[in-house]
């Protein structure tokens, strides 16, 4: 088995191992799901559980990428713009671009987004 890297918490059990089976509130996940589209009528019990894990993976991936940008700036505190830049530079996070760039005139993220078109 591949050894985990410095930032990987796989061996230590990740978040779920420490805080209980699910680290995110299932009822809240379900509410967010329902709100996303009028089509969503019934949700099986296991769907929020799958999402709890998926969201964890999502947060971990976006956080790792943002952290790389924080390090590039020789900083130790992750800023909102680091997250925004990680979104802009990652294809699968395209759906988030409009969310992170609220002001196209200011901020490094907006400038970067404008450059990418």
């Amino acid at each position, binding site marked *: 088995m591949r050894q985990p890297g*410095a930032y990987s918490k796989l061996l230590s059990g990740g978040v779920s191992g420490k805080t209980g089976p699910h680290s995110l509130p299932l009822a809240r996940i379900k509410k967010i799901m329902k709100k996303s589209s009028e089509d*969503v009528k019934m949700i099986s019990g296991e769907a929020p559980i799958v999402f709890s894990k998926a969201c964890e993976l*999502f947060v971990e991936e976006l*956080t790792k990428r943002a952290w790389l940008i924080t390090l590039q700036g020789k900083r130790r505190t992750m800023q909102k713009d680091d997250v925004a830049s990680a979104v802009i530079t990652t294809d699968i996070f395209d759906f988030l671009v409009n969310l992170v760039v609220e002001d196209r005139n200011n901020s490094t993220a907006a400038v970067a987004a404008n450059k990418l078109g």
Partner: protein
Amino acid sequence: MEDNINSEGASSSSSTTTDNMLLPIANVGRIMKQILPSNAKISKEAKETMQECVSEFIGFVTSEASEKCRNERRKTVNGEDICSALQTLGFDDYGGALKRYLSRYREIEGDRVVINQNKPSGNNNNNNNILQEDFLLYTSTNKTPNNDNLFD
């Protein structure tokens, strides 16, 4: 009033449409913190941005999953629909690992019913740990993000 979670122009601070539909900042912050080195710090704004991104992620994947259900004339969005949607939307690693997580969860839930019927003292904690260990195995082949995209 349009209350769509995917609407453009959602402000980052004191947002209106998504304000009460965020996952708790403590939970989100904890996940972020645990993946970073111990000397890392995370600004509150970064955590808030992450909260919003997660809600958007849930909405995005759910819409895809729900459309599939509609096309197949099914009413209930289940775990597999989420897994398939993840794979369709480019989150291949998540989708594959979660499918196995889900089938293991279903196995354990089935076992738990049997165990609880036979032994009232129950093995609930063990079951959850088994599930977590299995998930770790299944995700051990996950690649850490490569730097290519960042240095284009």
